């Protein structure tokens, strides 16, 4: 019996992150879109003068953040805010420092139209790259969604490797969760509460110079409030704060140790910490331990759950092209049936090469790749196989 099996495409989730990665039904993740998104992310034609791409400010080598205090767009135009890291934005609930968009699909188009960034229009940008605006949007959002950071020393420590963090970093973790009060806002796998807080950064001489979240909500209480950034890869994303005004991690720690900057709507959780020098050093060591692997577009192909080792049972139904088919499947052993290469790296090789053949005495399973999404599976009875 031969059936066509649709592979489950998922992102390879690094250690420390939730396995469930939210993807909107309107823009399902595909390898094609992620690959296109990656091309577009580096494509300067999206900007009005062909000088700026997404990667110009979201540098993959710096965890998709920018080394400059504020973003610099076409014709050298300077923005007012630091380009934030794009890692793990798949789990984001709002985007930009002021949270003005609530989906990645909405977010990715804004910089194209921002006069201080790419200074173009979505329609014009799409035309220049030969795609429709919807394709542009969905591909860029899919690629950004695939930018994941995890597997840090802290993640390994949390997973049980007690030697993964140095004693100083462990002391820093205690400060982070205790006296430093950092984990009030920097929580969960993404190390952000996705909420907005006024730490006083936007206040100069008693005056709020960037209203932040209030520009979206219109609420006075939100004047000077900005979204909590992730701390993953934070050692690689200097300078810090929404305006890039603090150059080093030590500067940031000193800022919070002083209790932020006086502000009319200062968050109730921002208050002097009275950290010792040793505690500050420990905290910095811990923050540096939040750097790990940054991956983008790392798509994994998996067999449907019911065909994975240990899951198969006789008589189950498997979705295949052309409808449902009834397949007699025996347990196929403990080893993975498939470990296909990343087609983004070499899609031709992926399609051309046979993937795997497994036998366990009762049935023979042969897999043949058809395209990046499908394989042909041939189940043939061997020796004592009996259909379910």
């Amino acid at each position, binding site marked *: 019996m031969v059936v066509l099996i649709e592979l*489950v495409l*998922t992102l390879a*989730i690094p250690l420390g*992150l*939730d*396995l*469930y*990665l*939210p*993807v909107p039904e309107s823009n399902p993740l595909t390898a094609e879109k992620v690959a296109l998104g990656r091309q577009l992310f580096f494509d300067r034609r999206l900007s009005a003068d062909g000088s700026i791409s997404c990667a110009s400010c979201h540098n993959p080598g710096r965890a998709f953040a920018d080394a400059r205090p504020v973003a610099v767009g076409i014709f050298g135009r300077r923005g007012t805010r630091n380009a934030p890291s794009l890692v793990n934005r798949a789990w984001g609930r709002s985007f930009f420092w002021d949270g003005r968009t609530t989906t990645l699909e909405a977010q990715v188009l804004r910089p194209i139209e921002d006069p201080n960034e790419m200074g173009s229009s979505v329609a014009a940008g799409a035309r220049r790259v030969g795609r429709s605006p919807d394709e542009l949007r969905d591909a860029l959002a899919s690629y950004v969604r695939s930018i994941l950071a995890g597997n840090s020393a802290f993640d390994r420590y*949390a*997973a049980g490797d007690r030697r993964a963090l140095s004693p100083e970093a462990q002391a820093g973790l*205690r400060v982070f*969760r*205790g*006296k430093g*009060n950092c*984990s*009030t806002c*920097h*929580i*969960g*796998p993404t190390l952000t*509460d996705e909420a907005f807080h006024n730490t006083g950064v936007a206040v100069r001489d008693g005056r709020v110079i960037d209203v932040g979240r209030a520009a979206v909500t219109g609420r006075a209480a939100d004047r000077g409030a900005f979204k909590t950034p992730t701390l993953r890869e934070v050692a690689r994303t200097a300078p810090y704060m929404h305006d890039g005004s603090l150059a080093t991690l030590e500067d940031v720690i000193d800022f919070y140790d002083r209790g932020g900057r006086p502000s009319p709507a200062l968050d*109730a*959780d921002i*208050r*002097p910490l009275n950290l010792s020098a040793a505690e500050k050093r420990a905290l910095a060591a811990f923050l540096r331990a939040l750097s790990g692997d940054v991956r983008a577009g790392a798509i994994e192909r*998996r067999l449907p*759950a019911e065909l994975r080792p240990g899951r198969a049972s006789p008589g189950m139904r498997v979705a295949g092209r052309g409808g449902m088919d009834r397949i007699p499947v025996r347990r196929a052993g403990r080893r993975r049936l498939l470990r296909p290469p990343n087609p983004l790296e070499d899609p031709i090789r992926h399609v051309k090469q046979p993937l795997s053949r497994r036998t366990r005495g009762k049935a023979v399973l042969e897999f043949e790749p058809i395209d990046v999404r499908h394989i042909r599976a041939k189940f043939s009875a061997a020796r004592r196989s009996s259909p379910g």
Partner: protein
Amino acid sequence: MAAAMAMAVALAGAQASDSRTLQQAIDLIESKGDVRAALPLLEAAAKSSDRAVAARALLYIGQVRAASDPAGARNALERILAEFPDQKAVAEQARVRLGNRAAAAGDQVLLSGDAVPEPAWTSVSPTGEFLAYTDLDTGVLAIRSFGTGAVRRIEKSVNEGDWVGELAVSRDGRLVAYAVSMPKRQSELRVMSIDDASASFRVLARNSDAYVIPQEWSTDGTQIAVQISRADSTTQIGLISTKDGSIRGLKTLGWRGSSTVALSPDGKWLAYDAPGHESTAERDVFVLAADGSREVAVARGPSRETVAGWAPDGRSLLYLSDQKGPMALWSQPLVNGQPAGAPTMVAPNFRGTPLRITASGELVYYVVAQDQSLQVAAVDFQSGKRLTGPTFPALDRWGANRQPRWSRDGASLAYVSSRPRASTDRTMAIQSLDTGAVREVPLQLAYIYTYDWSPDGTSFIARATDLKGRQGVFRIDAQSGAVQPVALNGDVGHFHPEWSRDGMTIYYVKGKEEAAKGVSSDAGQSYIEREMQSDEERVLFRQHDVKTGDGTTLLQLRKEGISPDGRYVAAFSVRPQSTLYVIEIATRRARALLHRQRPGVIGRNGGVQWTADSRGLVVNLGADSGVAREMWFVPLQGDAKRLDIGVDDLVASAIAVHPDGQRIAFVAGQPTAIEIRQLATSRPAAR
């Protein structure tokens, strides 16, 4: 036309008269406690053509008659549901008071009374034959047969300070997974045989910064759905392998997590519920693929939806919802993790806590019906004789009010009031003694444990859990309910905050949480004075500095209080016997004032307060775990005196002594039913 107008005018006049009659009755009960005089007025108001007045009158009849005439009370409440369903707020209260879902035809009571354990630490076997639970007296794991009632303790190796928490019995009924919390924030997830008494437990996971809560075993026993409560106040849903303890973290929720996580019989799906945001009590139900590949909302809306469990065949998910009215049990068919068709109602008016859907499809659930009310009595502390009362302030929210506290000027009574359908679970109510008017302050807190009025009445200082799941000491604005953290718990906790008389400082106990709970003999607690302006802390004394009369007893600063004159702190020893001490701050000497042989019976759950003149303390004194039977005045000099407060069912909870030295606010009443029941889920209920 004119006749019609005249009739309308007459009707309006009669209704206004009925409303006044009702108010007279309320005044009699709230301010004088004269239920006998109020009842005829309530009966008259219950006949009013004004449906709102009639319904409220019936509600009050149902409340004040509960103790003396349970059948009459029940009849009044049932009349509300039958005749006044349009009076929704009143009907909801009546429903709550009627004891949740009355045992309907087909419901079977499996267990009742004192034998019923806390539902949070209970797991029913898949066949519904027995339950595994944490014995609250000993903190160890036990098994109780529903059929024979036989109890067997199966965990014998719990150390001092260890505590068995949540449990899950495997689908074959042979193993139990259970969480154990230990001192110094350590915890373990263990698995143990239920049948083999000689077998030792196996540790699946050991953590210092996460607490793994077992939820439901897979059918093949190879994994357990868990919730992982993490140190950063988040909760992660995941699966733990029973072979090697490896954990697959699937989805992170806020600190409140899911009420339960149910693993489908085929192991492919996890059902859970979660609040939409931090400050709401409303929840939605989701189904998440066990491989993390997708998630679907099953029940969502401006309502409270919580998971009950999967049907045995895995083809439908049962959940509770109040979206269409009173809380009901619903069944949603699912195909491949997706809703297939409309949900059907299985049981209306359901108010229990689901424990398990058995292999044969019965829902085993826990139900408790309370009949407790906030009351005030005036007593002569010298003679112990009652002067007036008890009266019943806050008649309108009978049963929902706890933790009374008088303002320092005695003009107001504050209490915490539950609001199950509100955006926050609890409200601080402040009642003026002059006008009787109640002002409600929504609490931006998830839970409030103890609190104290500031001397100027503008704020409270409270030990609480905030909406981010942080515990510690918070200041609450008495007008807006806005909350400001004062001292958050970290490696050490902060407990029992109180204001100084001048309002410049607060006092609290600082130390390890397990010591404050009395589950550990850790003597590392300190009594702290904190300057509110500068946030500077000063240690007034350390626990181990305190000298008792015989020089040997280690005190635990538990449910203590500082005397209004700032000279003494009240403290308790809870083991091996109960003793009430006062510690003189200047000398750090402790003096025993009251002694009882049985551990833990003095001042349970905040049931102690100083008199305003610092002459002595009023304390609750109990005989068993739930009910404080007596209230005593314990002077610094002279003999203790039992106070007649006019009730014999005093609840072991916070009490408040008025500055006049006579009035005492307290909570009294008994649970009317605590049961574990089961109902069949296979047939939809009639609409």
